[in-house]
């Protein structure tokens, strides 16, 4: 269904065990997908951030009963700008704050881009690997 909505913006769909699905979409079109998940009554579990080396990736974990869908999108390391989804899911704001301080992803249009866990004057990104 997502394919019909987003067409060429869906890069990769990986179903794993049981009811887990991982979907990778182009940066920017993730908002369309999230909107679709919201209409389907999805529950946002958490947003993970992963350092892939060349790129930084955000993984949005949704529960759309009975499926567990993880939506991925990534941005180049030099300019890691990904737009916020906190207007669809208010609880995403905190997860995005964590991704910003820990992985150094720049979440565009974030309503409250303060540090969440780290001290305010901390400038490094501790979870970057490469």
């Amino acid at each position: 269904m997502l394919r019909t909505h987003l067409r060429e913006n869906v890069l990769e769909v990986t179903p794993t065990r049981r009811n887990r699905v991982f979907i990778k979409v182009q940066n920017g079109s993730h908002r369309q997908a999230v909107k679709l998940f919201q209409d389907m009554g999805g529950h946002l579990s958490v947003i993970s951030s992963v350092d892939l080396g060349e790129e930084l990736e955000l993984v949005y974990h949704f529960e759309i009963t009975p499926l567990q869908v993880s939506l991925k999108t990534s941005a180049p390391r030099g300019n890691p700008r990904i737009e916020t989804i906190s207007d669809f899911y208010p609880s995403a704001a905190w997860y995005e704050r964590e991704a910003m301080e820990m992985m150094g992803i720049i979440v565009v249009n974030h309503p409250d881009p303060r540090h969440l866990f780290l001290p305010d004057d901390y400038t490094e990104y501790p979870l970057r690997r490469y």
Partner: protein
Amino acid sequence: MDVVVQFGPQHLALAEPERLKVYAEGEKVINVDITMGYNHRGVEKLAERKTYEQDILLVERICGICSMSHPLAFTQAVEDIAGVTLPERAEYSRMIIAELERIHSHLLWAGIAAEIIGIETLFMYTWRDREFVLDQLETITGNRNHYAWNTVGGCRKDITEKQIPGLLTALEVVERRTEHYIDSFLRNRTIRARLVGTGTLPRDDARRLCTVGPLARASGYAVDVRKDDPHLAYDRVDFEKIVLDEEDNMARAKVRLLEVFESVKIIRQAVAALKGLKGKEIAVPVKEIPPGEGVGRYEAPRGEVFHYVRSNGTFYPERVKIRAPTYANVQAVPVMLEGDTLGDVPITLASIDPCFCCTDR
């Protein structure tokens, strides 16, 4: 915006450091700003530097009370990557320990709530009865918490025949006592005055803010990973999802205490099932973890514990992401407190059963 009251980082109502900046107009709460991170230990980073086996013991130490839930979720994620199917005996014995943990956590919560309300007697009684459960956990696993029960592919130890009678007796005691506590919570005037109608979280907000666990279920938002995403042997035992729609602090107390009975039910069925699986294996060997990613979820006493593990084919995980239930629930606290009086702040905050240690990791 008249008054700003600081709750914490050190506060009598909280065992853990956390700061609430409460904006109030007279006695009425208008807004709350939450500052976290006093307990940040960098567990996610540390997990990348340890092997999978070591990580199980590491994530177990994120929280002293959910010390079964975190390793359960973590091992599930890793088992997903490795494509392992658990032996049935391991599923049931994992379930027994996890449900014992739920009982002791809910009784612990009832005690803390009673203490915050100011009824110390009830606090001491609930904690005394919690000891019965902890004693059983110690007999079976060797520890009151941090059970070291899980390994990738099964359990490290087995529940022996000798331990069963003691376990069943403890369940009976706990069941009888919990009936008494429900009675106390429902009938005591002081408790009712403090709990009924305070800390209201409407159903729509519970849904919008993606809350989990007893907080969501007390607001009529029926999420329970044990039912929604069946794993272990939860689809083979008979129990109910407790959902109430009263939305206030009292509903949360009721949900937790009623869940104790469901846990007792689950353990009894699991013990019966274990008898039929006598002498079966408790773990399958896992040789290697291939590259891939996995998601592990478990309904901890406080709500859904979420672990995301990405593997790169080595002995060390590429990334471990941990979301504790309080991380999702604490975002609902400003909504719950809005319009209440300052005196309700401690009990309303305690009503989500916060574990900031888990949240900060």
